[in-house]
C-alpha cells in the first residue's frame, strides 16, 4: 500500500470529474434529442444542480440549515437585470427605476452582468452573514427564513428596483443549456475544492461539535461566514441564469415553494457531500418532471372524459409535491444522511470515507 | 435476600468497552459502594441498571426479575430510583413540584401527600423552600431534594451516582451522613462514588472498579487492608478526614 497516496489522490479528484461528466453527458443527450420541452427541463435542472450545490457548500459543511437561500437567488436574479439590461430595455422591464440612478446607466455583457450580480449578492450575503453566523441551530434557520420573508416583502413593494408584484417583461432569453451546464460544472468544482480546502475541513470539524472545534483554535464563525458568502454568490448566479431563461417572473417566484424544492433535493441526495447534492438535484428534477407529466396526462384524460379518465375523482393538483414531500420524510426517517449517505462518487472505489457523517447522525444518542 | 444482581455485564460506548464481565450483588438492606477512578465504568454500570444504556451482553436481575434492556420508566416502576450525578433536579419547577414528579408513578394521592409530609419533616429545608423554584436552592439543598425526590417513588433500591461531586467538603460529610441514615429507614443503597474513603466509611461492602472490571470486592476492612488499594486510591489528594462513625447531629 505504499503507492496509496497517489492512488487515493486520483480517486479523490475523480469525484468532480465524474459529477461534471454526468452533467455534460445529460446536456449532450438533451441536445441530441432536440426536444424543446426536454431541453427546457434539463436547462432548469442544471440551474437546480447549481443551486443545490451552492446550498451544499454552506449547509453540508457547516451543518446549519438555511431557508434563506432564495432571498439571495432573488437578489441575484434582479441584480442581473440591473447590470445586464440596456437603458432602453430597462425602460420596459423596470419602468419605475429613476433614470438618474447610477445603476440605470450600467449595461454589461451577459456573463459580466452575471458576475457583477454574483459579487453584489455576495456582498449583501456577507453583510447579513456577519450577523447570522453567531446563531445556532434552530435560531439560525429561523433567522434565515425571516430574511427570506423580508426580502420577499421588500421586493414586492419596491417597484423602482423590481417592478413590484407585477411580472417582469422584456428580458431577453440569453441563458442556453451550454451556459447552464458550464456554470453547474464550475459550481461543482468550486464546491468540491472548498470542501477539501482547509477551511472546508475546519468547518466540517465544527459541524460535529462546535465547542470542541473552537477549543482547538478553529474560528468557527469565520469559517461559516466564508462558506455562507460563497454560497450566496453561487446562489446569485443561479438566480441570474434562471432570470434570463424564464424571462418572466415576480418576487413570488423566489419563495417557499422554491426553497422547499432545493432543500428537498439536498436532503434526499445527502447534504454532506457534493455528489449527494448533484445526484439529489438530478434525481428530484427528473422524477418530478416525470410526475408532472403523468399528472398532466391524467388530468387531460379526465378532461377529455375518456373511460379511464372518468375513474379519477378529481383534478390532480399538487400531486408532485405530495410525492416529493413523502419521499423526503421517508429519507429523513429511514436514511437521514440521504441517498449517498454523505459519500462522494469515486473512481476507483474503495477508501471513500463517508464524509464525516451528516446532519442527523446522532441517532442512537439518548 | 439478593435484591439486585448483575451477571457478566458488558457495556460499550461506541467502540469503547466501558464495562467488562461485571458481576455484582446487592443484598436487601445493604449499602454497597461502587468505587474507582474517573472512567472506571461506574456511571456506565449505573446507567445500564437504569435502562438509560443498553448492555451488549449480560443480565440485570432485580428482585428475581430480569430487567435487562427495559426502558427507564419501567425500571423505576419495578422499584429502583436513581439519584443522578449532578443532581438533575428540575430547576424551573418548585421544590414541591419536584417532589410530586418523584411520585409520578404513584397513583394514590393520599400516599403522595403523606410522603411529601414525611420527607419534608426529614429535610426541613425543603418545607421552608417548598414553593420556590428548585433552581434557586444551593448545591447541598439540591442534593437533598434529589434524594427526597427519588424516595418519593417509594423505591426498594436507591441508586446514587456521585452524590458528593461538586459539593463543599462540609456538605460532603452531610451527604454521607444522610446516606448512612437511609439504612435506618430500611432502604437498600447502591452508591457510586469517587470518594473512596468516605464510601468505605459507610458501606457494608464495596466493589472496586478499574477499566471496566471488578478489581476487588469485599468489606471496607478487607479493601482497606489491600496495600495496593491503599496506595492507589486512598493515598493522596483526599481532603476529608476519615471518621470511623459519622456523628449524628
Amino acid at each position: 500500500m505504499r503507492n496509496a497516496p497517489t492512488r487515493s489522490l486520483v480517486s479523490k479528484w475523480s469525484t468532480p470529474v465524474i459529477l461534471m461528466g454526468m452533467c455534460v453527458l445529460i446536456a449532450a443527450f438533451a441536445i441530441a434529442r432536440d426536444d424543446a420541452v426536454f431541453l427546457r427541463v434539463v436547462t432548469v435542472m442544471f440551474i437546480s444542480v447549481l443551486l443545490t450545490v451552492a446550498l451544499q457548500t454552506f449547509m453540508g459543511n457547516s451543518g446549519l440549515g438555511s431557508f434563506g437561500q432564495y432571498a439571495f437567488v432573488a437578489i441575484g436574479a434582479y441584480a442581473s437585470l440591473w447590470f445586464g439590461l440596456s437603458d432602453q430595455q430597462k425602460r420596459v422591464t423596470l419602468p419605475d427605476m429613476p433614470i438618474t440612478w447610477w445603476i440605470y446607466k450600467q449595461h454589461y455583457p451577459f456573463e459580466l452582468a452575471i458576475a457583477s450580480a454574483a459579487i453584489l449578492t455576495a456582498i449583501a450575503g456577507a453583510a447579513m452573514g456577519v450577523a447570522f453566523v453567531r446563531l445556532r441551530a434552530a435560531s439560525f434557520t429561523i433567522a434565515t427564513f425571516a430574511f427570506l420573508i423580508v426580502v420577499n416583502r421588500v421586493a414586492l413593494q419596491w417597484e423602482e428596483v423590481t417592478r413590484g408584484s407585477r411580472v417582469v417583461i422584456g428580458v431577453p432569453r440569453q441563458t442556453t443549456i451550454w451556459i447552464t451546464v458550464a456554470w453547474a460544472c464550475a459550481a461543482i468544482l468550486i464546491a468540491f475544492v472548498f470542501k477539501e480546502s482547509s477551511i472546508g475541513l475546519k468547518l466540517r470539524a465544527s459541524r460535529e461539535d462546535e465547542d470542541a472545534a473552537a477549543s482547538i483554535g478553529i474560528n468557527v464563525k469565520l469559517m461559516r461566514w466564508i462558506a455562507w458568502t460563497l454560497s450566496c454568490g453561487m446562489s446569485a448566479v443561479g438566480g441570474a441564469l434562471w432570470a434570463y431563461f424564464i424571462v418572466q417572473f415576480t418576487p413570488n417566484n423566489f419563495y417557499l415553494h422554491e426553497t422547499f424544492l432545493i432543500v428537498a433535493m439536498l436532503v434526499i441526495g445527502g447534504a454532506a457531500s457534493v455528489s449527494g447534492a448533484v445526484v439529489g438535484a438530478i434525481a428530484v428534477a427528473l422524477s418530478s418532471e416525470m410526475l408532472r407529466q403523468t399528472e398532466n396526462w391524467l388530468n387531460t384524460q379526465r378532461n377529455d372524459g375518456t373511460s379511464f379518465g372518468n375513474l379519477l375523482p378529481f383534478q390532480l393538483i399538487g400531486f408532485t409535491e405530495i410525492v416529493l414531500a413523502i419521499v423526503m420524510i421517508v429519507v429523513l426517517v429511514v436514511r437521514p444522511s440521504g441517498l449517498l449517505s454523505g459519500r462522494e462518487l469515486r473512481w476507483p472505489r474503495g477508501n471513500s470515507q463517508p464524509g464525516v457523517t451528516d446532519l442527523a447522525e446522532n441517532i442512537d444518542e439518548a | 435476600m439478593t435484591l439486585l444482581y448483575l451477571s457478566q455485564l458488558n457495556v460499550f460506548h461506541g467502540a469503547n468497552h466501558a464495562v467488562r464481565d461485571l458481576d455484582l450483588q446487592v443484598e436487601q438492606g445493604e449499602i454497597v459502594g461502587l468505587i474507582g477512578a474517573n472512567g472506571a465504568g461506574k456511571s456506565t454500570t449505573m446507567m445500564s441498571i437504569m435502562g438509560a444504556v443498553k448492555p451488549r451482553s449480560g443480565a440485570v436481575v432485580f428482585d428475581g426479575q430480569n430487567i435487562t434492556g427495559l426502558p427507564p420508566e419501567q425500571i423505576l416502576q419495578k422499584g429502583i430510583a436513581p439519584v443522578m450525578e449532578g443532581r438533575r433536579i428540575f430547576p424551573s419547577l418548585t421544590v414541591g413540584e419536584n417532589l410530586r414528579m418523584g411520585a409520578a408513578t404513584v397513583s394514590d394521592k393520599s400516599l403522595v401527600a403523606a410522603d411529601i409530609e414525611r420527607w419534608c419533616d426529614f429535610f426541613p429545608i425543603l418545607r421552608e423552600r417548598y414553593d420556590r423554584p428548585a433552581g434557586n436552592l444551593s448545591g447541598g439543598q439540591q442534593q437533598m431534594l434529589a434524594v427526597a425526590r427519588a424516595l418519593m417513588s417509594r423505591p426498594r433500591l436507591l441508586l446514587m451516582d456521585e452524590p458528593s461531586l461538586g459539593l463543599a467538603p462540609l456538605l460532603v460529610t452531610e451527604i454521607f451522613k444522610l446516606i448512612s441514615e437511609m439504612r435506618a429507614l430500611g432502604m437498600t443503597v447502591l452508591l457510586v462514588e469517587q470518594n473512596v474513603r468516605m464510601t468505605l466509611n459507610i458501606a457494608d461492602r464495596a466493589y472496586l472498579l478499574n477499566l471496566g472490571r471488578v478489581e476487588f470486592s469485599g468489606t471496607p476492612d478487607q479493601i482497606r487492608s489491600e496495600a495496593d488499594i491503599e496506595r492507589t486510591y486512598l493515598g493522596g489528594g483526599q481532603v476529608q478526614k476519615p471518621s470511623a462513625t459519622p456523628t449524628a447531629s
Partner: protein
Amino acid sequence: MGSISDFVQYLVSSLSVGGLYALMALGLVIVYGISQLVNFAYGELIMVAGYGLLIFGRSWLPWVIVAIMSVICAVIVALGMDQIAFRPVRNASPTTMLITSFAVSTLLQSVALLLISPRPRAPRLPSIFVQSAEIAGIRVKVVDVVALVVSIVALTALQLFLRKTIVGLSLRAAADDFTMTRLVGVNANKVIATAFAISGLLAGIVALFWIGRIGQVLPTVGFQPVLIAFIASVVGGLSSIKGAVLGGYILGFLTIGLQTWLPQDVNAYRDAIMFAIVIVMLLVRPEGLIKPAFSRETR
C-alpha cells in the same frame, strides 16, 4: 367621548388579537420546549381545522358541534404528525427536525390542494362573526369580545393544567431535563404526544377565530398564523411559556396599533419590519424577552 371610545375599541381589539397570537405562539413553544422541534407544520393544523369547519359545516349539525369536531381534527392530525414523522427523527439535530417539519407542512398543504381545492372556500359561520354590540355606549365587535374571553379562558386552563396535574408537571419537567423526566418514571412518548395534542388543540381554537375573521379557508391559510407564532415566540422567548404569551400580546398591540396609526404606504412594509425585528431579536437577545430562569444542563 369619541377618543375614549376609540381607545376602548383599540384595547378590545388588541387584547383579542393578542390573545389569539398568544395561543398561536404557545402551540409552537409547548412542542419546542420539550423536543427542540420548531414545527413549521403548525400552520397546517390551523388549515386542517379550517377545512373541518368547511366540511362538517355542510351538515345539519349546529355550528358549536362543527367547531368542536374541527378542533378534534386538528388534535388528531397533530398526534399523527408526531407519531409518523417526528418521533423517528426525535434524536436528530434541530436542523433535521426543522427540515422534516417543512416537508410535513408542504405535504399537508399539497394534500389539501389535491383533495379539496386551491381556491378559497367559505365555510358556514355563525352570525357572531359579523355582529357588533354596544356595551356601555361603546361599539365593539362581538367576535373580539368572544376571542378575548376564549383566549383568557384557554390560557388559564392551560396554566392550571401545567401547574396542577402530574401530566402538566411532566411537560414542564421534560422541558427542563428530558432524560431525567424519563428516569422518574414518566413515559417519554406520552409526554411528547401530550404536547402535540395541546398544540393541536390551540391551533384548532385559533383556527375558529382566524377563519371566522377572514371568512374563508384555502390550503395556505395556515401560513400567516405560523409566521405570527414565529414572531411572537422569538420575541417572547422560544423556550418560555410565559414568553410566548407575552410575545403574543405585544404583537397583538403592535399589529393593531400599526394598522390604526401607521400611514398606508408604510404599512405595506409591515411584515418586512416585523421579520427584521425577529432577526435583530435573535441576534441581540436570542433567548427572547423572558429567558428561562435556569439554563438547561443537558442539551
